[in-house]
């Protein structure tokens, strides 16, 4: 059972990294961002490319891979997403899904379709009571917890964070105070994309790397955002870990139903708490 719990926390942490950006972009911009899969996947492919060039130094390479995603996500926001503010959700859905498909094809063209293997960068285990738990998985969970507190500090203590929180509640009110919210939305978008890339680079060593890897995890992340409340940063954190645990426990007894169970939970939440969009 301890392995199930560790697996649940790990997948919960990964879901949190990816979901937080989706939650922020929907909460502030009212954009359902399917292009999130692209930044997630590009982060992973940048990682495997750089790691081959730099021969190791996982943390450094992971940081560089995340930095590489930042200009890409800015271009997506500036030239596509920004034109869709205030438009129907259908347009944002179609446009960002198109970006995601174009991105997947570009990845296939550059890196091919074959899965890439990658090893656990730490490769050590924490042994206690006859059990051995991969330290790398514990590190992923700790990073998620640190990120949770870091983001809380960012949104509570910095003026940028406070403006974003105010915009989540009343965008027009912020605009009428003379603040160009688009600038702050760009920051939110890039931050969310960088966190998705962080999720990708941390998940890559313990999952399968292929061009479509972003799509399945994106759907799970949408479930996290819906259960946690769109734009609700703390809700996203707890929802990610709760659904990660749902997946892990279900997988233990019924491996094929692990993802299905997440969407069943989402459906139940929607029945009792429909989203107002």
């Amino acid at each position: 059972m301890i392995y199930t719990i560790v697996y649940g926390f790990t997948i919960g942490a990964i879901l949190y990294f990816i979901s937080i950006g989706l939650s922020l972009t929907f909460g502030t911009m009212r954009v359902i961002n399917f292009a999130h899969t692209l930044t997630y996947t590009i982060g992973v492919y940048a990682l495997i490319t750089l790691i081959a060039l730099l021969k190791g130094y996982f943390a450094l390479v992971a940081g560089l891979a995340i930095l590489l995603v930042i200009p890409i996500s800015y271009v997506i926001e500036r030239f596509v997403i920004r034109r869709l503010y205030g438009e129907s959700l259908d347009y944002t859905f179609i446009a960002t899904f198109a970006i995601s498909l174009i991105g997947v094809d570009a990845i296939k063209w550059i890196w091919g379709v074959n899965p890439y293997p990658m090893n656990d960068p730490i490769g050590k285990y924490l042994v206690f009571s006859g059990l051995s738990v991969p330290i790398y998985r514990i590190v992923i969970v700790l990073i998620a917890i640190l990120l949770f507190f870091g983001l809380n500090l960012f949104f509570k203590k910095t003026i940028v964070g406070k403006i974003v929180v105010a915009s989540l509640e009343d965008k027009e009110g912020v605009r009428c105070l003379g603040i160009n919210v688009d600038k702050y939305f760009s920051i939110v978008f890039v931050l969310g994309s960088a966190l998705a890339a962080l999720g990708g680079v941390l998940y890559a060593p313990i999952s399968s790397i292929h061009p479509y890897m972003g799509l399945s995890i994106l759907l799970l992340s949408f479930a996290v955002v819906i259960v946690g409340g769109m734009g609700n940063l703390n809700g996203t954190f707890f929802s990610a870990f709760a659904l990660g645990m749902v997946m892990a426990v279900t997988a233990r007894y019924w491996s094929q139903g692990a993802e299905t169970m997440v969407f069943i939970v989402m459906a139940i939440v929607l029945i009792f708490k429909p989203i107002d969009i």
Partner: protein
Amino acid sequence: MLEIKDLNVAYGHARVLHDVSLKVETGQMAFFIGRNGAGKTTLLKTIIGLLKPQKGSITYQGDEISNLSPEELYQRGLRYVAQEKKVFGNLTVRENIEIAAFAAQEPLGQALDKVISLYPKLESFLKTKAGQLSGGQRQILLVGRALVGDPKFLLIDEPTQGLAAIVIGEIEKILSGLKDRVSAVIVEQNLAMVNRLADRVYILKEGKVAREIIDKSEIADTRGLEEYL
């Protein structure tokens, strides 16, 4: 100072304002009164740039402003206080003022002093989430937030709606203190307040200006105005 000519505004195909024309001179307080759905809020939102007119012009200090954004209008000194007392409820009172100070590039201490001087009781609520304030306190915070920086023209939507008489008195005192310092357009249904503060009154009916009243004795005749509410 502010002049609107033949303004037409629509939501999709539903036209809400029809050929509205009006004028507010420097230092004046103009009040809009009218029934629900008369187009009062739409008119304020159009002046502040949240809605774009189909036709007509809005000039402010001689410049056409109907195509400017709320952010650009803020730089020209226009401030909008929306109805429903929409403070940033998840932020504290202090943080609400901090955002206004940041936007106006005014030191936070100065902005806090300015808002607290309007309503000293607010000082004990600085660390309280603005969403937990009473309706009157929220309204005062909104007006205070709008006064941070260098406002020249206020647009205030229903400042006393749903408030207790004692709070209405506080708000009237604040608005009265602003008279001659800033110009304002205020949507208000409290005719006693209109009577005491208004320099001119525009009665809106079904999206049109039904009457313009600039004569003080006519403004004082609240019974004459009641028929439009």
